[in-house]
């Protein structure tokens, strides 16, 4: 039996690790990473399907799946309310909620679903947030949204806060406007890619049982990263919206 096992492992690749190969699609003048788009569409499909199922037979007193989705909604509302404040958080719940749900579901699907069963011509299917393009896109959306929040609230007076406390702080504020999306994107991308690489290397070395604790840790940290991303997005929006009236709320 040992001979059979040895010859089996010599002829077939039990595990292999490759980084940086992508399944390129040509769209017009651009090349896009097809594998990221495929998994993103699956994530969107899962979320839309879950919402459709939960609202298909709405009861006044929620039971079962509707109850679970309402719990999710309350959680997301809580994130927005904590960061933006009681009075202003309502319009931002869809945006913050979408960020949280998309990142959370894509991280967990990337970790839990056996994507390797589907063979691609090049590259392999994995979590879409493990691609820097996805996370940079999400971070730039957050940037655009907090600029929109500040400018729609205060007009061009939003930029007066840059020189309000002291004109020497202006370079710091400008720098912060660049580092906010940078840190958001790299935090998420680094966490997800690092988890995938560690699990990949462990599977390469010891395919059975040993990668399991790391995979469970990966599930935990990727959930936390989804929470961090959406909490930070809400906090930047809240910071951009706040005016002089908010200071009285801080003194309990």
């Amino acid at each position: 039996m040992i001979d059979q096992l040895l010859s089996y492992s010599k002829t077939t690749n039990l595990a292999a690790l490759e980084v940086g190969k992508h399944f390129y699609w040509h769209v017009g003048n651009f090349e896009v990473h097809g594998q990221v788009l495929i998994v993103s569409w699956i994530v969107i499909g899962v979320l839309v399907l879950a919402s459709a199922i939960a609202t298909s037979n709405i009861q006044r007193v929620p039971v079962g799946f509707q109850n679970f989705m309402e719990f999710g909604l309350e959680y997301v509302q809580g994130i927005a309310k904590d960061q933006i404040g009681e009075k202003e958080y309502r319009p931002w719940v869809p945006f913050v909620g979408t960020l949280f749900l998309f990142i959370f579901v894509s991280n967990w699907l990337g970790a839990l679903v056996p994507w390797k069963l589907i063979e691609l011509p090049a590259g392999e299917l994995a979590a879409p947030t493990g691609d820097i393009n996805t996370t940079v896109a999400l971070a730039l959306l957050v940037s655009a949204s907090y600029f929109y929040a500040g400018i729609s609230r205060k007009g061009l007076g939003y930029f007066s806060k840059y020189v309000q406390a002291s004109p020497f702080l202006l370079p710091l504020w400008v720098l912060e406007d660049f580092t906010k999306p940078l840190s958001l994107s790299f935090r998420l991308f680094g966490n997800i890619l690092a988890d995938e690489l560690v699990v990949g290397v462990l599977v390469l070395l010891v395919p059975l049982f040993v990668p399991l604790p790391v995979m469970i840790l990966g599930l935990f940290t990727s959930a936390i990263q989804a929470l961090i991303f959406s909490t930070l997005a809400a906090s930047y929006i809240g910071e951009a919206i706040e005016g002089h009236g908010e200071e009285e709320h801080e003194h309990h």
Partner: protein
Amino acid sequence: MDPLVAAASVIAASISIGLASVGPGIGQGNAASSAVEGIARQPEAEGKIRGTLLLSLAFMEALTIYGLVVALVLLFANPFAA
């Protein structure tokens, strides 16, 4: 790839991730110790303290991740490879 570039990249990658884990490691230890002390002082606040602790840990983790990203770029997407 040029052997000098390869050797330098490997050393740089390991130094990057090695150094990047020192600071956040100390910081996370401090944060956890303060959290435990807070829970010991007021056990009813455990939920909030744990929530804040996890949030702060993730922020500090991000700093190590930046070093890891540099290491990964040097190893797998090296801009100086021929």
